[in-house]
């Protein structure tokens, strides 16, 4: 069986002649979590857009096991929109529900189940905008769970979330891994990336891809983050970056 995510020589960008993605080539197998590391503007979100088929790439190929589920950064969703957490989770079923049909009862049950899985069963009927940042992030993950895709793309899901939410999200990641799904997680947390199956370093092109233990060298991180990199004295390895801001 082929891997759920395979890209070969992917090149493209927003403006003709300026490639944000330069020769991106990687494979993420079933049950693997791949960290996508890179500075702001380095191509993480652009890669996701290419995988979602929103950004026509210039050359290369993408093979996916199915339409990926996407979890955006929580601040991209409207807080003033009159929906409950359950309504948001249910949006994951819209893609398979014809416009003239009601959302199936089974999908409503799936939304309840997904919210319970991310620890928000009791907040199912709370208005999305009243939840904390971490809870909102979990609701968006629940929506992706309802989509039931073999591939999940998550854009900095652990950035700025509270500790209980982070623990719950990491637990769901482990469950999804055990189910054989492939997760691509954009992150700035190098230490976190070391704990996952694969790491892809981007900086206007692919810097490196492979197992974290062998890939995340100081040299690779320097090429990935440039001046943003801070190497802690005595640690013997690069572990963090100086600052980051969300891409919008």
């Amino acid at each position, binding site marked *: 069986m082929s891997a759920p995510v395979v890209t070969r020589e992917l090149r493209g960008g927003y403006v003709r002649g300026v490639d944000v993605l330069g020769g991106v080539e990687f494979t993420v197998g079933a049950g693997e979590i791949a960290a996508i590391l890179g500075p702001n503007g380095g191509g993480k979100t652009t890669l996701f857009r290419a995988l979602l088929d*929103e950004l026509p790439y210039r050359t290369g190929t993408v093979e996916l096991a199915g339409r990926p589920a996407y979890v*955006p950064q929580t601040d991209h*969703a409207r807080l003033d*929109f*009159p*929906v409950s957490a359950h*309504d948001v989770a249910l*949006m994951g079923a*819209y893609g398979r529900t014809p*416009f003239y049909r009601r959302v199936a009862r089974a999908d409503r049950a799936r939304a309840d189940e997904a919210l319970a899985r991310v620890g928000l069963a009791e907040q199912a009927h709370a208005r999305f905008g009243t939840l904390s940042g971490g809870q909102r992030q979990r609701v968006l993950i629940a929506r992706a769970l309802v989509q039931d895709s073999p591939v999940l793309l998550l854009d900095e899901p652990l950035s700025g979330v509270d500790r209980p939410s982070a623990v719950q999200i990491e637990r769901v990641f482990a469950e999804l891994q055990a189910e054989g799904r492939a997760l691509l997680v954009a992150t700035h947390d190098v230490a976190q990336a070391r704990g996952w199956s694969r790491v892809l370093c981007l900086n206007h092109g692919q810097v490196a891809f492979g197992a974290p233990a062998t890939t995340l060298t100081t040299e690779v991180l320097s090429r990935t983050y440039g001046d943003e990199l801070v190497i802690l004295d005595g640690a013997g390895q690069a572990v963090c970056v100086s600052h980051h801001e969300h891409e919008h």
Partner: protein
Amino acid sequence: MLSSGIMQRAFAEAILLGLACGPLGVWILLLRRSYAAESLSHAMLPGLVIAAVAGAPLLLGAAGGVLVAAAGIALVARDARAGGDVGVAVVVSGLFGLGAILALAPETPPRLGELLFGDLLGITRGDLLAAAALAAGVLVALAAGHRSLAVTAFDRGSAHALGVRAARADLALLAILAVTTVAAVQGLGNLLLIALILAPAAAALNLARRLPAAIALAAALAVLAGIAGLVLSYQLEIAAGASVALCAVAIACFALLKPKLGVP
């Protein structure tokens, strides 16, 4: 008051328009298209004047005016130097000015007031049937596009991944808005109809916590504004369309003053 056919038709028209304008307004506000809504209604003035001069139904003139405006906006928006809002402003101001020149020309029958502010008391049986058909079409289209509009308004960046074409939802909303504008112009005129679209919806979104409740409440408040406006107009002998618009705005102001009622 209800014994005359004129008032019966006016009330029926106000109720029909309220049922269509209220729910549409909720989507206009959630998708932040208030400027487009106001612009589209203003831009059809030349079409209305030409219909008035030619003795054609205003509905026909409104439809033609909206089509020309939409085509003009699309054309200007293609020029990267102008962009979206600038394109709308240029086309709408130009068309409104052209409409005013045509309306104030000596050869034109003096109907500018009716075109700008509508004439709910002049609604014919044919106008009523046309408004009913258009309002029904608007409600069916909004129901069919509910999920696409919701995803686009809530989280546009994820729309594609959720199987929704955000650009298509935007376009569909503008088309529905154009149909509603055409339906409402006879009764409320091209300056006042926007009040019935936006004000009850703003009130409903401030009062309701969930989308279905907001949509139902917006329809109810728009109908209420229509009925209250007509009663006020009858009692005080003031212009019907303006009364309806003022009642809609009063409802919105009242809702903004009230704390959230927590309508489920």
